[in-house]
């Protein structure tokens, strides 16, 4: 039974591609929440539009659809009341648009930290309300609170963590995010497609290729344009290089948080080599603005190909020795094994993507499901582990590095000749959406284009939305001193989440 059959009476929107979008009534919306609560469907996104709230749904059979609830009165039935993963998304909708989730157990703002000049900047603007933020209580003898951040002792992104601890043992940790809110969705509204691509590429700088690819594919889906095959292969090549660089950085940084700086130094070298190769090939270390709607901005020449082959040879020679170092350092294993366990049922319920979900038994990779070109033509494995601890998240990254190396080899083998870009032409109002697998999980981009070549509304959903809440569960029963290690093994995005 398809998603739309399950929902029953629906009114399908014509120009939404590639998956259907249906406007549902109260009964249909409630039915969808039933399916989430029963664990048959996964909530993959929840965002607002002018007088409407959309949700992206992935069914058990990996079918995808968008359901829309019209809320011209500024109220919609809360999803979070029965499906907690929607909580922060609903709070963000309230802060950005002012739409009220009816029946929600948590009415506090999200992203809006009380510093904005206006309330609800994307909806009906009003005067800001500055109520003190109430952290969730934890009661008991000998409990004490430790506030951490948003300014940290190191140079890292800002986020506030409120620990309630009994000595060293963490009883509860609550995150408060939004310190790097940039108003990307506001900037998107009314922007040209070119400008939109640049904005999407800056949502989270470490995943710029993934964001730009997802945005480009959403535009291409909406306008029904197929980019040249060479461009698709080059996008995959860039995405895998980005994954390599980030995984190298992460593996080293996790070890560094256990004070094993040797690994950090060694993986730092591999990361730097990768970034220099990408700069030589695509003119930018992080490959920012290299992927554009319709294709890619820069072609790979013979010299770049040779550089990448040299890089592959070096990585293949060096990386196995680092795996050995990780595996054979008992003091390091002592820190990572059984630390910060994510329960598989939470990973499933929240639809956690990336290494966090895959280390806790959730076999989901946007390159496979829904899948996109050219990955169907390439052979690769999606590593999955069940342990859910820091060690498992490191191993998923190690295995993915190996898969990425193999993918890059295959892409270089098969890189088709031809052009790398097609022109984009918008013939009329249309909507598109796309998933891309960034290094930390699936990125969702949904957009609506007007006939004047401009973006009406664009929503970017980072994988971190469904990963940050799991960090709060993973730290329970661990000690405060192990939090940085857990946090680094998650490496959720602040920027991509705060938008």
């Amino acid at each position: 039974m398809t998603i739309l059959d399950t929902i029953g009476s629906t009114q399908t929107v014509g120009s939404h591609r590639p998956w259907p979008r249906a406007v549902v009534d109260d009964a249909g919306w409630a039915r969808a929440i039933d399916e989430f609560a029963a664990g048959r469907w996964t909530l993959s996104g929840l965002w607002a539009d002018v007088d409407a709230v959309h949700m992206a749904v992935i069914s058990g059979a990996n079918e995808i659809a968008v359901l829309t609830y019209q809320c011209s009165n500024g109220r919609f039935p809360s999803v979070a009341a029965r499906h907690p993963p929607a909580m922060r998304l609903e709070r963000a909708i309230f802060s950005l648009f002012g739409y009220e989730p009816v029946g929600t157990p948590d009415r506090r703002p999200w992203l809006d930290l009380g510093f904005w000049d206006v309330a609800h900047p994307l909806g009906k603007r009003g005067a800001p309300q500055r109520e003190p933020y109430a952290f969730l209580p934890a009661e008991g003898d000998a409990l004490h609170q430790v506030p951490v951040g948003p300014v940290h002792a190191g140079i890292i992104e800002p986020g506030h963590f409120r620990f309630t601890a009994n000595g060293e043992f963490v009883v509860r940790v609550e995150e408060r995010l939004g310190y790097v809110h940039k108003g990307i969705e506001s900037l998107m509204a009314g922007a040209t497609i070119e400008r939109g691509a640049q904005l999407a590429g800056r949502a989270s700088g470490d995943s710029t290729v993934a964001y730009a690819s997802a945005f480009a594919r959403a535009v291409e889906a909406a306008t029904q344009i197929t980019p040249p095959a060479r461009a698709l292969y080059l996008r995959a090549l860039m995405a895998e290089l980005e994954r390599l660089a980030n995984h190298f950085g992460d593996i080293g940084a996790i070890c560094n948080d256990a004070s094993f700086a040797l690994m950090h130094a060694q993986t730092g070298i591999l990361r730097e080599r990768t970034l220099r190769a990408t700069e030589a090939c695509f003119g930018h270390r992080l490959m920012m603005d290299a992927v554009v709607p319709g294709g890619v901005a820069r072609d790979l020449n013979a010299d770049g190909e040779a550089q990448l082959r040299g890089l592959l040879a070096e990585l293949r020679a060096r990386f196995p020795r680092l795996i050995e170092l990780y595996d054979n350092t008992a003091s390091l294993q002592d820190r990572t094994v059984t630390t910060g366990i994510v329960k598989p049922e939470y990973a499933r319920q929240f639809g956690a993507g990336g290494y966090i979900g895959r280390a806790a038994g959730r076999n989901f990779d946007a390159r496979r499901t829904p899948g996109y070109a050219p990955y169907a033509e390439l052979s690769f494995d999606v590593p999955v582990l069940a342990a859910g601890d820091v060690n498992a998240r490191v191993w998923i990254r190690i295995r993915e590095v190996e898969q990425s190396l193999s993918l890059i080899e295959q892409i270089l083998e098969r890189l088709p000749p031809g052009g790398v870009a097609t022109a984009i032409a918008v013939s009329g109002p249309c909507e598109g959406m796309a998933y891309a697998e960034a290094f930390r999980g699936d990125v969702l981009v949904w957009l609506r284009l007007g006939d004047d070549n401009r973006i009406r509304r664009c929503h970017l959903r980072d994988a971190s939305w469904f990963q940050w809440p799991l960090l709060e569960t993973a730290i329970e029963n661990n000690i405060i001193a192990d939090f940085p290690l857990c946090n680094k093994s998650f490496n959720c995005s602040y920027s991509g989440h705060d938008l």
Partner: protein
Amino acid sequence: MALIHEFIFQGAQMLLVLALAPLLTGFVRKVKARLMRRRGPSLIQPYRDLARLLRKDVVLASNASWLFRAIPYLVFAGTWVAASLVPTFRSGLLFSWTADLIALIALLGSARFFLALAGMDTGTGFGGIGASREMMIASLAEPAMMMIVFAVALIAGSTQLSTMAAFMNSPEVGLRVSLGLGLLALIVVAIAENARIPVDNPATHLELTMVHEAMILEYSGRHLALVEFASFLKLLLYVSLIACLFAPWGISTATAEPALVAVGIAAYAGKIAIGGFLLAVFETAIAKMRVFRVPQFLGAALMLALLATLLRFVSRSF
């Protein structure tokens, strides 16, 4: 005349540890950086850091008490005196007659106590966490240190460092199991006391994992300079102590000629360099342990030291 002579040597010793302490820290950092294929900061960077901090203004928390302001001076003075008690290149120091190894432990213990008070003084979460962790470490490291002192003192027949060094340098020491156990225990204690990996990480930026650094997070300017300087001195003290007790070769006696004093200085420099190098290698090869594993690590030191003391009662030849 002899007294003036002694004063000069004791003064020289005090200035020597002061001048050398930042260099040792700089050396350890440099070796660690080289082991990680980084170029690393210059050897004299710790001196520059101290000079920079001394020039800077002090930022005080509004609720900081007078204790918070006084403690850096107390900690620095206590550690400096303790460091100048350990014979470096010449035994028979003037202070030896008034302060022995037990006084040295007391001085360091007081410094630690005051620093923990300072950590809690401003009432921040991190200061409290750091102070509580530091005390947990101290409650095991200090008894272990006492046992080490007893073990070595029973063999040397004194707790006075000059006498101990002279005895250790004489042929009657021989090869003793209890000394080996004592050395191992002392190394473990030294690692814990100096907040080195695997107990604490002196280079970390992660507030939640810090021990020593968490206590001093609120310090700035000249206060921070003094606290930092005290920790440089403490590292030098422990390396000197290990060298003095377990590798006393080359330490000149009180009546030695100038040439032998020069040999003593060269030997001391060599020993410090080797100690710093070994520390850097050890720290590079190991990850930090979980906080609750530290008691086991220090408990091992306590047991080793206890064993070393007990063995003396089993047979005089141990």
